[in-house]
């Protein structure tokens, strides 16, 4: 089975080339995709954790309970 291809448009000559990816390029893309997915997941987790801390801080403020340092950090700009 042939490797995927990429297209390159030369803006000076106007020539368009269809180029088959090398095995090394495919491996690098798979690595890049995994790295990007890991970064996306980490950012999503961090955002969820921050939202949970904020919600907990708000609930404690309303009920008059002491906040943890982490919860207080979410309120200080």
């Amino acid at each position, binding site marked *: 089975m042939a490797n*995927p*291809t*990429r*297209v*390159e*448009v*030369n*803006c*000076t*000559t*106007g020539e*368009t080339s*269809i180029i088959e*990816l090398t095995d090394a390029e495919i491996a690098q*893309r798979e690595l*890049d*995709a995994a790295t*990007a*997915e890991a*970064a*996306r997941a980490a*950012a999503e987790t961090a955002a969820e954790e921050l939202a949970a801390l904020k919600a907990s801080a708000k609930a404690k403020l309303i009920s008059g309970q002491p906040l943890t340092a982490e919860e207080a950090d979410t309120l200080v700009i």
Partner: protein
Amino acid sequence: MANTYTLISSNTVGSGGVADITFSSIPATYTDLKLSYSMRNTAFWSSISFNGSSANFSSRWLNGSGTAVNTGTRTDNTEFVLGELSTYTANTFTNGDIYIPNYAGATNKSFSIDAVNENNATLAYQHFGAGLRSNTAAITSITITPSSGNILEYSTFYLYGIKNS
């Protein structure tokens, strides 16, 4: 204020799709660049690279999904270019513009995007992003790469050069 607007090159993706698209050997004779695209992909997000490199990028983005708004900060070039998922309504495409001012100058390169999905469902994103590449080299090539899979057939890309005089 730009008073010229010239099509430098364009491409329509052919049968089978492509893993990425590159506009190379971009002449330095314009002030700004604008890449207008209509794209459908296997993956939702694509990255943008300049001069064959994806290093030293950072970005911020804002989008609306139809039911919520989201913002984010990235220290890379991924999740910058919004695409159309192949699971969205058949024969629909995401439309977007990427604007790159002062691309041939000797300063770091800022750029922006606005794009919108088309989908016959509640979920359809509107996306705005601002990016920075901390590299002073003039931009001579631009590559759009989906995070996985291909850019699908009939996706179109138009690269314009804009002059301020």
